[in-house]
Each structure stands twice: as structure tokens, then as C-alpha cells.
């Protein structure tokens, strides 16, 4: 199957008063058509920068694309002009943002906000769309994302809607031009659990209806288990491990993935058992130390870890881990992941 999206060694920096912040330090990712990929990691690890770079949302001068490529259907998005990018956004790739409160325009009725994209991009089949068509399409979309009484809702403003409904409207806007790739950046983080469950169901049903591929960015391992088929774990601006959802949950290989899985609260966790946090704090992005970004917090640090960024050690094309433990000459690979394999 052809790859829909391929990031190779993507490096993005921001210039701040304090110096150059290296947000992405060589991200490798692949996404097949029709697949669902979850990007997980802590705040500041580069999840959102990865997504926004794919959409090329940073204005010229704000972000410095230092290297690597973002190939979408074989074409490197980094080489496109702004004009060509506008053809991609919305129609090919669209995005749902984290905060439905601030990403909708508060002064425009939601119906009009949905119609805007349809009018601008046209539908897939025909270039010309009348206002009437766009209105019908907006109604259909609102109904599709499970909003009752769409006729009335069309004319209402974002402040008339609840958080869950606003996120549904955001999804309707993102789906309005039937994109091939939907990027959802923390789509449920601002929502309550009961509403979160509704939105996750909605995203899964949208995917099974069309052939949309989805990238979900989240820090919630429960959401990952619910929706993802592939997982990329990010830390300190690189993907430290990627594989299928079963690989990551039951056969994790990177020490950070071990720590992440162990520090998650589980309903069946016995009370007398203390939690196992990862000691220390995430690494600095400005002037990062050479070597593996996790070395400072890792229980298995070796001398080589401080000397250079570990390369990706791969097992097949969809499974890889950036850790020196899998390098040649590493004495023993700790069998920590075995404690997950019984689950």
C-alpha cells in the first residue's frame, strides 16, 4: 500500500530571545492510507509542532525548517509555495484543534463557518458550488456529526453551544471538504469523559464511512488504546518508538515508553502499590545536551547515550525504536516490557 504521509528526519526550530529552540530534532513517521496513528508524549515533546508543520501553519520566519521532508502522496510539502499549500489545506489535509472554545470565530454563526470552507474549496466532484449547495452540505455535515436540530443550530453562535457541540462543529468544518487526512490535536482534552467518549465514537464512525486517515495527538493512553492502530511515542523532539498499538502497549521497547505506561493510573491498580513515576523533568529544547534526550531520566543510561542521538533501530518498516539498548554490542536488553505482555 502506498504511504499517504511520510516524515523523514524532520527538523524544526524556533528562534526565541533565549536562543534557538529545537522543537523537532529528526522526526520519522509514516502513515498508510486509511490508518489511524496516535502521537503520544508529554507537553513540549513536539507533538503539536509536528502536526502544525505538516499543515505548514507557521508563517514564514516564525519557524525554521532546518531539514528533512514531509512527503504527502509522494510530494514534499516543504517545497510547495504558499499558494499550492492552500490547495492542500482543507481539501487534502484538515485539522481539528484542541480548544473548541477559542478556535471557532465567536462573531460568526456556526453554519456560516462550516459553509466558508465548502464555498472556498468547492466540493470534490465539481468546482462550482452555490450558496444553496453549501448550505445543504453544512446541514448534512451537522447531522453527520450528531447535532440534533441542525436547522436551528446553523444560525447560532459558538457561545450558544456546549463544549462538546463546539468540538462537533470543529469536526464538521474539518470534514467539510472530505479530506484524505484528518489531524486532530488533543481533540478531547478540553472535554468531560462522557463527551470524550461521544467524540471518539464519532471520529471512528467518520473514518469507517469515508476513507479518511487520522492522526490523533494526545497524552491520554486510554484515548490511544481506544482509537489508534499505530502509535508514535515522542520525547524531546524525536519519535523514540513507533509500532502498532499492540506493540506499544504489550511489547514496548523504549525505556520512556516503559515509564509512561507504568505511570498511567489504571482502575485495577491496587491501592497499596505506589505509582512508579519517571523521575526528573522533560529536557530543555534550547541548547539540548548532545545524545539521547531521555538519557537524564533513564534508568539504563550507558556512556554511549550521552555521546550521540541514537539512530532508529528498525524491525520491519512500521516498527522502530531510537535507543542504544538495541544497538550492536549492547550487553543486556532489560526485559521490562515482559511485565506488560501478560495484560
Amino acid at each position, binding site marked *: 500500500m502506498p504511504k499517504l504521509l511520510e516524515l523523514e528526519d524532520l527538523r524544526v526550530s524556533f528562534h526565541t530571545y533565549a536562543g534557538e529552540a529545537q522543537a523537532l530534532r529528526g522526526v520519522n513517521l509514516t502513515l498508510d492510507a486509511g490508518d489511524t496513528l496516535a502521537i503520544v508524549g508529554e507537553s513540549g515533546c513536539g507533538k503539536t509542532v509536528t502536526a502544525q508543520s505538516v499543515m505548514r501553519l507557521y508563517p514564514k520566519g516564525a519557524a525554521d525548517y532546518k531539514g528533512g521532508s514531509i512527503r504527502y502522496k509522494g510530494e514534499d510539502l516543504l517545497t510547495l509555495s504558499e499558494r499550492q499549500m492552500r490547495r492542500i489545506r482543507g481539501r487534502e489535509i484538515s485539522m481539528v484543534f484542541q480548544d473548541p472554545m477559542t478556535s471557532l470565530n465567536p462573531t460568526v454563526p456556526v453554519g456560516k463557518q462550516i459553509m466558508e470552507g465548502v464555498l472556498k474549496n468547492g466540493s470534490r466532484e465539481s468546482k462550482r458550488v452555490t450558496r444553496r449547495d453549501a448550505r445543504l452540505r453544512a446541514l448534512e455535515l451537522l447531522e453527520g456529526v450528531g447535532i440534533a436540530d441542525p436547522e436551528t443550530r446553523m444560525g447560532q453562535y459558538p457561545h450558544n453551544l456546549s463544549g*462538546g457541540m463546539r468540538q462537533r462543529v470543529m469536526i464538521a468544518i474539518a470534514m467539510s471538504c472530505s479530506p484524505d487526512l484528518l489531524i486532530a490535536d488533543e481533540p478531547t482534552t478540553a472535554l468531560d*469523559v462522557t463527551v470524550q467518549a461521544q467524540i471518539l465514537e464519532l471520529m471512528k464512525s467518520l473514518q469507517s464511512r469515508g476513507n479518511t486517515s487520522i492522526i490523533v495527538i494526545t497524552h*491520554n493512553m486510554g484515548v490511544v488504546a481506544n482509537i489508534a492502530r499505530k502509535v508514535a511515542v515522542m520525547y524531546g523532539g524525536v519519535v523514540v518508538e513507533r509500532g502498532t498499538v499492540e506493540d506499544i*502497549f504489550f511489547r514496548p521497547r523504549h525505556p520512556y515508553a516503559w515509564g509512561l505506561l507504568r*505511570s498511567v493510573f*489504571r*482502575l485495577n491498580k491496587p491501592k497499596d502499590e505506589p505509582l512508579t513515576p519517571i523521575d526528573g523533568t522533560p529536557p530543555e529544547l534550547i541548547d539540548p545536551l548532545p545524545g539521547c534526550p531521555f538519557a537524564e531520566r533513564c534508568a539504563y543510561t550507558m556512556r554511549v547515550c550521552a555521546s550521540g542521538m541514537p539512530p532508529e533501530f528498525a524491525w520491519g518498516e512500521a516498527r522502530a525504536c531510537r535507543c542504544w539498548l538495541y544497538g550492536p554490542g549492547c550487553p543486556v536488553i532489560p526485559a521490562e516490557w515482559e511485565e506488560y505482555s501478560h495484560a
Partner: protein
Amino acid sequence: MPDAMAQPLLDVRGLKKYFTVGRRGTLKAVNGVSFSIRSGETFGLVGESGCGKTTAGRVIVRLYEPTEGAVYYRGKDISRLARREAAEYTHNVQMIFQDPYASLDPRMTVEAIIAEGMRPRGMYSRGESRDKARELLSRVGLSPEHAQRFPHEFSGGQRQRVGVARALAVNPELIVCDEPVSALDVSIQAQIINLLRKLQRELGLTYLFIAHDLSLVKYVSDRVGVMYMGSLVEVASAEDLYRSPLHPYTRALLSAIPVPNPIEERGRRRVLLEGDVPPPLNTPDQCLFLGRCPHATDRCQQGMPQLAQAREGHWVACAMNEELNVDAYTI
């Protein structure tokens, strides 16, 4: 809830807190809540945003005056304390806030933040309070050398440790923890939770733990109260509540949590709730869960059901409780 055992440390009886919202009416943030906390235990309060859990916590630390009902601390009504007793109460009951970025004064050093509460009490001299602040810093896992730093020099997790040290500074008995880890990353959350549990063991603290994350609340709490639109709908021991939830809302809430295990997650039967929580403005006198409840009948329209004991130590406010087949349900 009356308790036959020894006098509870904190007893909340029929607590109501209403806010007037413009001309639109009254927002019943907390609408008749009763529970008690025993000395040394952790009582968890869970619910979705807007359910009134934070408001309840704020009434308990006297940031708000109750509209009706009362909070008794060691048998005394906290809104009728003499000035001296009131000062005593603020030392006994402290709070840890949700947002470690907004709850520390950016212009004060960490030492000044921690020592501020000790001063008016006249317990310590300036030098003693400085020593005590340093001791507290090491107690919460920071280095005493950090004392002269400002909040912006710390990460989120470290700031929350400062918040914990500030609460401990006046030797409290009860700490209201209002979403103490929800602003932090997963790997850091576990650090703070371990710290809170360690301090509870060492100092014999009592916690009111307010959070929306049910797996977290289950892990830290001895007993849990579930709130929905200003009312407590279920109170039980943590184990009991999660093993056999009785209220339809609790069941829906539990089944909505995604489990961090892809195989289990695929095989799960979900109780999906329709719609959102309606705003608690000018609410009618009926079960407030009525609109979203899969088991609703006519009986649910006859007044808000009161908490009733369904079995030993397990209380539920549901008119249909007898009829719902409890045992058929597992999460």
C-alpha cells in the same frame, strides 16, 4: 449523611451554594450536599466540569459563604466561629490549587510564599520561619537551596510541590486538594500523587480530594462521592463504587473512561450518554439526570431523589434504584 461512628473531622450537612447570574436567574452550583470525612481518610469528590465539586471545596475552606446548610469541623459550625476560632480553622484546613502557574505569586520568592502563612500566627520568628520553609522544601522533594528562587524558575511539577509546602506550613489537619495534578504531565502526576500519599502517612493528614479523573480518584481515595449538577448522586467506598456502581450516571461515567489497554478497550460494552450536562440554571424539581438517563421513568419527575443507603456504606440518590438490576452490571 449521619454517621454512627466517632465524630467525623468534617461534616457537611445540606450544603447549598447559589450564585445569582445576571437576570437569567440562579445558578445552583451546590444544591444540598451532605457527606462527612473521618480523620485520616481521603474522601474523593468526582464529577464532570460544572458539577459543583470545586465550589463545595471552596465553601469548606471558607472562600465562599454557604447559601444554606452548614459545614461542621470537629462539631463546630464553621460559619459561626469566633474570630480566634476562625483563625485557628484556617490553619487547620488548607487548600492545594489546580493551577500551579496561577496560584503562586510571581513576585515572591518561594521561601516568602511558604512562610507567608506562618507569620500572622506569631508561631515563628523571622529566622525560624525561614528554617521551617527550608525544611518544608526538602520534605516535598525540592532542595533547600531553591528557597530564594522565584516561581517562574520552576517546572509545573516543582511549582505544585511549592503549593504543597505552602499548605503544610501551618500544620494543617485537613487539606482540600482541588485537581492537584490535572495541569501536569502524566509522568509528573505520579510524582505528586506519591508525595501526597507519603505526607499523609507521615503527618496523619486528612484529604478532600477533588478531581475529574476517576481512575486517579479511585487510586487515592478511601471513600468517593460522585457529583452531578450540584448534587451528590452516589457515595461509597472506592472499591465498592468501582466494583458495583449503582447510579446510572456513575455507571456511564465509569464506562466512558478509556482503559489504557487496546484489547480490553475493543471488547468493552459502553453506556454512551446522549448530549451534554445542561447548565444548572433554574433547574426543575426532578431528578437532574433525567434527560440523559437510559432508565428514566415517570417516577423520576417527582422531585430530586435523596441519598438513601442501598447497602452497608453505599448510598445512592436514584428513584429507580430498587428496580435496576445491580448484579447484571460490571465494568
